[in-house]
């Protein structure tokens, strides 16, 4: 944390309001099928009545980063205008055979795999142009993946704010506590982007964390 960030952190609440940021460019990151686009759609629908893009059970549905500007979030007396970047799922390997398991023919699977590799590169490049990120994890999966470790490491190295969103808490096998114990140095908000569980808590955290 830099000097300015450290001073800000220790300010009384009245003084913090003076220094509050009014606008932030936030990237939504995570592995494929964690629910990034579902969450982007929910945030945008709740605050501007629009949507970001289609969702699918086939991994790497989002293969180009999508941006929605000027989404104003009001929560708990704090207001922030967000530029939201919904990024393609990050991965260290992409095998076209995995797509064929979802019924895609070989040519379509290879095309999707190629586009998915380009999407990962695009998502990594966006890291240089953000004010903070929401890192979405599937609360029913093991949180200790290399993608999660790399994204968190990059945000810590850049000294940029990060909120971990433990998504899919509507699933019976979900365990947000496992995510909290894996990354105890960061705030973890358990939600279901699909069902809307705990979404107001997420909006409060966004307004406080990125403002």
């Amino acid at each position, binding site marked *: 944390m830099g000097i300015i*960030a450290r001073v800000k952190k220790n300010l009384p609440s009245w003084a913090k309001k003076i220094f509050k940021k009014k606008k932030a460019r936030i990237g939504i990151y995570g592995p494929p099928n964690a629910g990034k686009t579902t969450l982007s759609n929910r945030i945008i629908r709740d605050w501007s009545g629009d949507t970001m893009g289609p969702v699918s059970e086939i991994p790497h549905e989002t293969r180009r980063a999508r941006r929605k500007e000027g989404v104003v979030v009001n929560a708990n007396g704090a207001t922030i205008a967000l530029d939201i970047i919904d990024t393609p799922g990050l*991965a260290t390997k992409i095998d076209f055979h995995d797509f064929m398991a979802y019924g895609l023919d070989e040519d379509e699977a290879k095309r999707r795999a190629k586009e998915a590799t*380009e999407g*990962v590169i695009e998502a990594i490049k966006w890291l240089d142009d953000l004010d903070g990120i929401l890192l979405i994890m599937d609360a029913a999966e093991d949180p200790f993946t290399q993608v999660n470790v790399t994204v968190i490491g*990059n945000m810590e190295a850049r000294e940029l704010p990060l909120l971990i969103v433990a998504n899919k808490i509507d699933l019976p096998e979900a365990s947000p506590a496992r995510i909290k114990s894996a990354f105890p140095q960061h705030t973890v908000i358990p939600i279901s982007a699909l069902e809307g569980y705990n979404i107001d808590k997420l909006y409060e955290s966004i307004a406080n964390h990125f403002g």
Partner: protein
Amino acid sequence: MSKKKTKKKRTKKSTNQKGIKIDLVSGDRLSTMASMEKIRLILDMVRNGSIVILERGLTPEEEAKLIEMTMAEITPDDFSGIEIESYPCKQRTTFLGKLLGKTTIETRLTVVGAANQLKTLKRDRDFISALVSARS
């Protein structure tokens, strides 16, 4: 004469043995290399079928760059990417660092292999269990 022949045969047999090559790169060697040199070295070794163990790992930015370059090299039926396993970085703050708001990031052991050779079984903050197989 016959002894010589036997020796020759044994040597030939040992080079034909199937195995998994492991390349261990010391922290000292890594510290003399530029980021792109490290990434190129890792990808070349992995694509040649080696499992690479880096004594002190890569910085988070270098890890992101490694993923980026891996994506650019993926080709159907040839190379589907890498499996990379590292312990999370440690952040250290000295007294002077505290005053200046500076933290030092300490990278840790990292294992990299081709996705079809290295499979993570279990990992947490201080433990990695992986299955390594010969090239398929």
